[in-house]
């Protein structure tokens, strides 16, 4: 029997090596696999390259990993946010490297890694300083720059529900980078609110087929959902307000 579920987040992140490239899902806080990041901090791997759209919010999740000095290099589209003080401090102190990638190129480069594409010509960034030094070509009268895949050793993502084959569904805009990162990493680890029985996920609605997923771990369900129904009751950072039911 195939069973990709693991009992706890420590098992889920076991074996991440120093120097690894780790993709971390999420757009801001939505879809950020906070429990997996906490486990990675505990696990101790360092000298990491992190690929993630942002560079952490507040003092938790990715920001906490950065604060521990575990990250050598960030590859992201938008590090600077109102609550990215941890990254900001490290960057200004020269303690972290940064590669800025336009968000759509970041997504497409990750997708290319998962889909076996060697490189692709993108119109995004043409003529800007982020395309400097990149190969340019005009195709059918439009200018493009050549972009290469971004692969990872490990992807840590957050989904809503999963099964023991690793099939995943997401929730709303928390889907964001999860499906493409799952396919771009050698080892993909998904935290889910709930592991459901094989066959419980509608095969028409599975977003990430299990072939892309190596480990699935159930974490505390998000507070704003009960039995799949939105019940409100939190603020934008997930702090409890009131429960409507």
């Amino acid at each position, binding site marked *: 029997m195939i069973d990709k579920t693991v009992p706890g987040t420590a098992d889920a992140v076991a074996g991440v090596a120093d120097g690894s490239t780790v993709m971390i899902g999420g757009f801001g806080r939505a879809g950020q696999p906070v429990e997996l990041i906490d486990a990675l901090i505990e696990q101790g791997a360092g000298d990491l390259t992190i690929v993630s759209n942002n560079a952490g919010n507040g003092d938790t999740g990715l920001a906490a990993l950065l604060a521990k000095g575990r990250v050598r290099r960030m590859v992201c589209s938008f590090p600077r946010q109102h609550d990215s003080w941890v990254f900001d401090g490290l960057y200004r102190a020269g303690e972290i490297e*940064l590669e800025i990638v336009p968000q759509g190129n970041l997504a497409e480069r990750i997708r290319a890694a998962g889909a076996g594409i060697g490189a692709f010509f993108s119109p995004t960034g043409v003529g800007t300083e982020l395309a400097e030094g990149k190969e340019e070509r005009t195709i059918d009268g439009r200018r493009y720059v050549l972009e290469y895949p971004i692969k990872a050793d490990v992807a840590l993502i957050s989904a809503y529900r999963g099964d023991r084959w690793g099939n995943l569904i997401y929730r709303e805009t928390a889907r964001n980078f999860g499906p493409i990162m799952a396919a771009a990493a050698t080892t993909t680890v998904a935290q889910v609110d709930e592991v459901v029985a094989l066959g419980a996920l509608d095969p028409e609605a599975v977003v990430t087929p299990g072939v892309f997923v190596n480990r699935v771990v159930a974490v505390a369900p998000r507070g704003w959902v009960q039995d799949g129904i939105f019940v409100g009751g939190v603020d934008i950072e997930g702090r409890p307000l009131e429960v409507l039911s």
Partner: protein
Amino acid sequence: MTRIGREELAQRIASDIPEGAYVNLGIGAPTLVANYLPSDLEVILHTENGLLGMGSAPAPGLIDPDLINAGKQPVTALAGAAYFHHADSFGMMRGGHLDICVLGAFQVSATGDLANWSTGAPGAIPAVGGAMDLAIGAKAVYVMTDLLTKAGESKLVAECTYPLTGVGCVSRVYTDHAVFDVTGGGFQVRELFGGTTVDELEQLTGLSLQLRIES
């Protein structure tokens, strides 16, 4: 000279968006445009973090942290919405499927170059997000901005001095003084607000401007 306020400008832009348009409103002032889309017309809003059919902000206590816009503010989803992942979302944009994108700007050049992601100031932390994708993706890119910086410099320029976001991508600029179309021959004044004249605009921008003639 008379200028119009930001809310009025948002309203002005909204009135140029036809029913059925697929529209992405950039972070900041452009998001105000959503407030002035007539509720009896259907305009479908795209947010690049994976949603088509975005609705307005939720009531307090109904905030769903999984449902946010590109500015990471809580939003809602309309009946008829669809969620998708980031590669699909940016493919939708890059592939030219959105009709209109409204963006802010530091500078727009007479050939439609846009600078809106970096002032190039030394020591600033660079952050581009989806700006470069938005700039080149939509069928029409509208810029919403004050005509002048706080220091009184024109944001309409012959050539951008700030780092570029996209080359030749802007089709129209809505400012507090006037609306400009970017044409093959530079900026054309499409509409003047209040008592503003083309002469005044030329003085403020230092550019040679043409008035659009309705044909």
